[in-house]
């Protein structure tokens, strides 16, 4: 496992997503209520970019017509066919056992720690005063 700096924390607002490239892979990075999560960008159905999907909550109903929304901002709907994925785990809501996108470990790390190691962001210099999003692959 290698650690890759992919963004500054303040680049990605709550509820937003961003496409990052790490070790040749396209990864969709999400800020869910201040926590960062990373899943493969490619929808396992037809390959659409999940980073372009709408970030939504979970609609559930015990009764026809009586719907409640929970888990606000924790799912992404694929922009092509609307399949829902749990941003935290990469699992499809409809078929969690068989349909999932790979998810990656994400940490937020002080620049000071990063500059001491062999870590470099590909697109920007790491400064010791800021916080960075780090993906492990």
């Amino acid at each position, binding site marked *: 496992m290698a650690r890759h700096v992919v963004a500054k924390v303040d680049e990605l607002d709550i509820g937003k997503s961003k496409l990052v490239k790490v070790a040749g892979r396209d990864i969709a990075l999400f800020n869910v209520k201040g926590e960062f999560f990373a899943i493969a960008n490619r929808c396992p159905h037809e390959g659409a970019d999940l980073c372009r999907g709408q970030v*939504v909550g979970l609609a*559930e*109903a015990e*009764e*026809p017509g009586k719907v409640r929304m929970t888990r606000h901002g924790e799912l992404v709907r*694929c922009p092509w*066919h*609307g399949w*829902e994925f749990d941003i935290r785990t990469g699992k499809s809501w*409809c078929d969690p056992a068989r349909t999932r996108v790979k998810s990656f470990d994400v940490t937020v790390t002080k620049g000071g720690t990063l500059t001491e190691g062999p870590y470099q962001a590909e697109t920007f210099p790491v400064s010791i005063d800021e916080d960075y999003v780090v993906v492990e692959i």
Partner: protein
Amino acid sequence: MDTAVAQQRVALSKLGAIDCDVHPDAPKRADLLPYFDEYWKEIVISRDVDRLELTGFPTSTRPFFREDWKATEGSGVDKLRKNLLDSYGLKYAILNCVTGVHAIYDPYLSTAVCRATNDWLKAEWLDRDPRLRASLVLPWQNPEAAVEEIERFAGDKRFVQILALCQGEMPLGRRIYWPIYEAAQRHGFALGVHAGSAYRHAPSQSGFPSYLAEDYVHHIQGFAAQVGSFVAEGVLGKFPDMKIVLIESGVSWLPGQMWRMSKDWRGARIEIPWVKEPPSALVRRQIRLTTQPFDAPRDPGELERIVEHLDSDDMLLFSTDYPHPQFEGEAAIPAGFPERLIDRLVRENALATYPRLED
């Protein structure tokens, strides 16, 4: 009779087969008159309500009736005994009255004719042979009266099902019908949806057909629409103990719709979040099909694959569709039907579908 057919006949008798789609003679006004009150007697005479045929199913149309059965002497239950009950050794036969009673506009006339038809079924058929069971006909456009009719017969367990047409006034999943399903479920009735149109709409989604050859096959569109409606409107989850039997729909069209609905559900689920499982799983659990006509492939060796596509051993119910000519001779079970499922087909699945049917 060839060996396979002879074996089949023995099997039906030995297993106590239950025929889930048998049609009694369509009652005419004279048959129903004793079951109307004074007012409705007056009305059916002065309005000349007589033959009560469905437009799509005139009883004079020759291809609808098997000549050898038609030629048997006698009428009513006697004729049914000779042609079917005795000769096939049936344990039970479920009578489905598919007539103009389903197509009447006037909600009060419809209620009166449904009541008379059910009383006629009871007196002229059920009371005359212990093997007979029946579906209640209901005034669907008058749900309050339909519920009353279910309550009226709740104590007579020989009525095991309520009956609707696959092409009626509205999609059957609509909430307006839910009081009917609530009563049906509470009393253990299954919901039978039979081929036929009340001609409120064109029988195809693209307009009126020109020929009988088209008309009959268009019923499949009606059935497909009803399955979609039952799933999406949430009827299956809301009334989980009420099985829905698609009668005379054919079989092979359904797997494709199950696959397609389950796939589309993944993207459109958010509109119908009360559908918490893939539609195919809901359909397998609650929807049943009678086996005549079977729309089977030409090669009997391929029939098992169609059954496998349903991915369930529970969904198929044996039927003859008497007196309609869906098969030749006595080969009521489609050729190539897997041996291991015969028991379920002719008996077990029906007992699980109709809680009012006693073993």
